[in-house]
């Protein structure tokens, strides 16, 4: 099935991410992640919730090997990317879009150039150097900027934008990769409540529109319940809850975060 999915790209194979028995220990004998397994397909959006320091960021970075996992496998649309290195790893990373808490834009470059940075995995370095991006990429970037309402900002420097606008640019950069999966690491934690909702709406709608599985680390439980179709509760490096937000009870939350006085 894997072979089929890769060879027949015109038929739009189901885009998916599958994590299998993933473990990570920074220090031997002290696992941060214990035997994590789950699969996300199509345009479902999944929230990963849990207290800080429980390994949410580590989990999401193990997917694209920014942090190498200690054991287990990660499949992107059926391809096992866990043991890839060098050029093959780069090729695999192109299929994984990532959105960050601190936006991670190149502040001194224009909005347009930041969006085009999403194509760096596809475009040879000399083209990037001379800023000779293919016309197709430029067209896509303009229409993407238009759809997120930042078209008139395309020539402005990224550091002149507000937080919400910057995060939109970060999302556009990830979408430019034409990813098979979109990862978001606390995408709303640096934003005000109203902007947070707008960013979540944008992420979910783009995931639907492009049919990409969306994996969001988030500590705001209400936001998670409101926008995602599935919640994975992480505590002490293990999955405590995996199911629809409607069935997430206070008992689960107590188990995930500990204590109960904060629950009203």
């Amino acid at each position: 099935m894997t072979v089929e999915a890769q060879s027949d790209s015109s038929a739009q194979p189901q885009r998916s991410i599958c994590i299998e028995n993933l473990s990570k220990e920074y220090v031997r004998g002290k696992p941060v992640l214990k035997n994590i397994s789950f699969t996300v397909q199509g345009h479902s959006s999944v929230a990963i919730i849990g207290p800080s320091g429980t390994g949410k960021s580590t989990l999401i970075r193990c997917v694209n090997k920014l942090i190498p996992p200690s054991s287990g496998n990660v499949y992107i649309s059926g391809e096992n990317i866990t043991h890839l290195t060098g050029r093959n790893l780069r090729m695999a990373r192109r299929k994984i879009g990532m959105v960050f808490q601190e936006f991670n834009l190149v502040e001194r470059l224009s909005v347009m150039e930041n969006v085009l940075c999403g194509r760096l995995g596809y475009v040879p370095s000399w083209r990037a150097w001379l800023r000779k991006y293919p016309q197709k990429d430029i067209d896509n970037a303009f229409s993407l900027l238009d759809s997120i309402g930042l078209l008139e900002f395309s020539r402005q420097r990224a550091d002149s934008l507000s937080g919400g606008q910057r995060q939109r640019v970060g999302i556009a950069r990830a979408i430019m990769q034409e990813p098979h999966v979109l990862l978001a690491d606390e995408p709303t934690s640096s934003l005000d409540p109203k902007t947070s909702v707008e960013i979540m709406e944008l992420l979910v709608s783009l995931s639907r529109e492009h049919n990409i599985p969306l994996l969001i680390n988030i500590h705001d439980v209400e936001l998670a319940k409101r926008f995602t179709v599935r919640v994975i509760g992480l505590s002490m490096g293990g999955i405590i809850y995996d199911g629809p937000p409607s069935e997430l009870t206070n008992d689960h939350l107590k188990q995930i975060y500990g204590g109960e006085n904060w629950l009203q």
Partner: protein
Amino acid sequence: MSPSPLRKWERFTFSERLARFAVFLGFAAALSISLRSVQIIPEFLYDAPTQVADLFSRMWPMDFAYYPAGIHDAMMETLHIATLGTLLAIVMAIPIGILGANNIVHFPLLNWLSKLILVSSRSVNSLVWALLFVAVFGPGPLAGTVCIGFRSIGFVGKLFAEALEEVDPGPIEALTASGAPWFSVFLKGYWPQAAPAFWGVFLFRWDINVRESAVIGLVGAGGIGMVLDTALNLFFWNRVSVILLSIFVVVILAELFVTAIRKRII
């Protein structure tokens, strides 16, 4: 209620005071020893004001007619030496600076090698570099240019490496996560963040090099220094004064020029 006992407070403990006194004594001893080895001859000291007055009287009136005849070309040569030398330094300092940035190159041996090159460039004085290259290339501006280049690698390379190490790792992580090749990550992640510092260093070093290349001519490495050397040897003091004045003016102009540009790029 019994009165609380007197509690003593002192800024330094007894041993700390002893140590401070020892340091003070050491400085005093060093000062007196070095004064003795300088061997000040009082007669020469009393004579100094007369000598200075004499020097100035010989320098006056300035021989301005000598500027177009003998100074101008040499001054242009000095500026060329400074500019080409700085460019040469940059070409060599960029790869060495990258090697020295431990967030880009993760091999401590290469970092160490880069530091070694940078330190040896800086630890040798420009006059010594000049003597070396005059011996290699013969006297003239080529020796001066190469001398300025080698002398500047250490300065430019060290500051460039530091600018690269201070780069925000966030955008680098983002570009790496998108599957960008190493050179693209450098071009779009590291370089835009380090570029203002880099151009600032370049201009600052050019400014320093204008001053340095005025001196290296004294040992035959071309430029205004050679003219100054000749004038000094022939006791043409009214020419010496014009040369010194023109060096002064050029250095001030270079400084103003660099300050104006730095304001624009940073």
